[in-house]
């Protein structure tokens, strides 16, 4: 990935048109609870960003700020080149937001709600709506109040996607969906990415699903950015090493700084490491005279390590 276009956490300059979202030292405080603390980041257009974090980490707040639903207590945020408190029709027609818990006009049927929402978008794609309704099995004749949580989530996805947004924000869009529909949703998102080259920011705890589509990871913990890297970089730097001792010799103690966790017996150790050195495993094996087998970690396995590794140096540059 070209570093100049990658999501960065450096201080944002004047928002360029190629930047989908920028946050400059934004802090959000709800009463006595601080949801975000001085978050600074850029999300360039055309990327699929996975927004990860534990419950209460500030993911939803960050997405709501990006959509202009919530305003930061301090700092500034720009979405599609405009300050989020001033978002207007030119930006809103290019912005899609799927909320974690859809709040709709409950007495309307799904079809009525879709028609109501469509009337605000000149580029609403009725063909896409029809296709997604069929693909995601959305019951269009039922009232929204009568829908199950999963069906409500599907409606939220339809409302967020059918106007072909340039920036699509997805806040836990799959939490109530069954595996089959989840798979179809991922296909839909990939299709949007292919056809419209839209920027997607997806927050989800279903990391195995997220991993299939994202190319960049931003991890939040207690309102701070703790990781801000491309998925490729993360997959190359995180690894699990299975270390075996040579015959009749116990394993020595490993004290390298890139070792994050280790589980060991006398003759076998399982290490999780983070290192950007491409030949670190060979160097390690030679240095300790041990056998090393390496395995890439999945995003699901990386997540606890990302959160535990407090804050990433690259993520908090003011």
């Amino acid at each position: 990935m070209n570093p100049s276009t990658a999501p960065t956490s450096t201080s944002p300059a004047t928002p360029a048109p190629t930047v989908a979202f920028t946050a400059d030292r934004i802090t959000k405080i709800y009463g006595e609870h601080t949801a975000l603390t001085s978050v600074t980041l850029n999300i360039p257009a055309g990327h699929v960003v996975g927004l990860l974090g534990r419950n209460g980490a500030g993911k939803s707040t960050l997405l709501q700020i990006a959509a202009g639903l919530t305003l930061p207590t301090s700092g500034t945020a720009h979405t599609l080149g405009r300050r989020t408190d001033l978002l207007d029709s030119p930006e809103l027609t290019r912005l899609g937001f799927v909320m974690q818990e859809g709040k709709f006009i409950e007495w309307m049927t799904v079809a009525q709600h879709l028609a109501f929402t469509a009337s605000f978008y000149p580029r609403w794609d009725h063909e896409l709506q029809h296709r997604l309704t069929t693909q995601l099995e959305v019951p269009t004749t039922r009232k929204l109040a009568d829908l199950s949580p999963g069906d409500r989530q599907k409606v939220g996805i339809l409302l967020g996607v059918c106007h072909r947004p340039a920036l699509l924000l997805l806040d836990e869009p799959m939490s109530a969906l069954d595996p089959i529909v989840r798979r179809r949703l991922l296909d839909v998102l990939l299709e949007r990415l292919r056809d419209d080259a839209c920027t997607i920011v997806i927050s989800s705890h279903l990391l195995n699903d997220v991993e299939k589509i994202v190319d960049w990871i931003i991890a939040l913990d207690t309102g701070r950015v703790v990781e801000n890297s491309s998925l490729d970089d993360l997959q190359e730097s995180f690894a699990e090493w299975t270390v075996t001792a040579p015959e009749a010799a116990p394993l020595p103690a490993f004290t390298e700084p890139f070792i994050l966790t280790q589980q060991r017996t006398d003759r076998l150790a399982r290490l999780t490491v983070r290192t950007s050195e491409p030949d670190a495993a060979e160097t390690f094996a030679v240095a300790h005279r041990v056998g090393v087998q390496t395995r890439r970690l999945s995003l699901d396995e990386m997540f606890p390590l990302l959160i535990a590794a407090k804050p990433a140096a690259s993520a908090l540059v003011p």
Partner: protein
Amino acid sequence: MNALTHHLRFLRPLRSVLFTAICFTMAESMAKKIPRLDSGAVELSTYFVALPIIVGLFIAGAAHEPLHRPFALLLPGLRLRQLRFAALSLGVAALMATVIAHWMVPTLSPAAALGLILALMALSQLNRHRQGGYASAPAVGFFVWLLLNLAFAQGFANALNRSPIPCLLVGLAFAALSLRFGYSRESCRRRAQTPFVSLQTQLFSHVFSPAVSVRWQAETIAHGLFTAPSVEALGHQRPSRPTGFTTRDWLGVLRRLEFARWRFERYFSPLGLAISTAVICFAFLPALGLASGQPNYLAALVNGADLRVAITMQCIVTVGLFLNFNQPDPLFPISRARRGELVFMHFASAWLFTLLWPIALIFLPSLVGQLLSGHALPGFGLYPLLVGALALAPLLPLAIGANLKPARRPLTIFGLTIVSVLVSLYVRDLAQPYRPEPVGCSIIAILSAASLTWMRRRILRHCRDCDLVTGSVGDPPPARLDASAHTYTVATR
């Protein structure tokens, strides 16, 4: 489908016209009770004050409802579209109201009438619906009162007639300012964070779409909890002592939950009712009576209490209590039998409240009125209401007990309406000569006890069989599986 269709969907013209007619009739009958208000002043206050305010509430409700959802901030142009619709609706409705009002009361200049009507109609555009209700309703009420008083000041109409064009301009300016503030960017941002459903949507949702109503209530409560300064302030705090094992203890739990669930009850809690009753009885009504030069105004008011209105009110309160009742939480560790007892006690207390509340409201003003005027009324003027209460006492438990299934709610509403009409028609002629006699009261007491016993049996049986999650019983069973479709053929050699 164009934008106008969507706006009409929110406006619900049929419901709006129906409710406007009902509210207008109530306002007119109330205005007629105001002392020294001659028929001309009544028409002035109803057609030029009450009607525009009522119509304005419905227009504002329709225009505001879509703005009170989180997605409102995401829909491009929604704010301006709603502003345009509100302005258009106000213009059309104000012109129509002016034509009607001018036709009914031709003494007022059309230009002045249009200005007055437009200003009052636009007043509700400033409503912010904080906490999910009509936050500025008290302000509207105050204006109604103020303008009613102005209306029966003889010079009011003359003053309007003397300067019709300035009046029209002021009305237009006020309407424009109301729209500007009501749909400002900041105002819409606040609206998006507050749940609100318009009056015309709410009322029938209770009856025909319980799921919509329940979801809206849950959302309102969640919003209240989220925005409350402390949980204790909402009365959700469980007592520090552990809940006991008696039905009475659990009734206390249920009461607290109902207290939290039903906002009306929170606003009109016993304390609130006592205070508002005291204010009405000891300050407002005597002041109105003295101001109008009729020290015995209260006594006259009580003596002429409209029995039909009282009975209808009792039925409405019953319906409200009935519809807003939700079953105890299915996760409560209580048996179905105890659950049934709790439901019965809830309805029994609601029944008692329904019968006694209007009587208490009349008794106190009557007492004060008699003390002030020295004019004694037989039985404190309570006889007409007692007749209504006694007639309804055995009927209400029957109506409730017969319709416990949620699916029968529309039938319950219909039944109670019929009951109220029949009772009011029946007792209208009896009211004046009737005096509660011991024998009659005894018969009513026996009938009421029998009716309550029957209701208790119905409720216990309902709670024994019902689905605790939905509260329904007797739903159609799942479709039988076709046995042939599940027959496996075992291959034999």
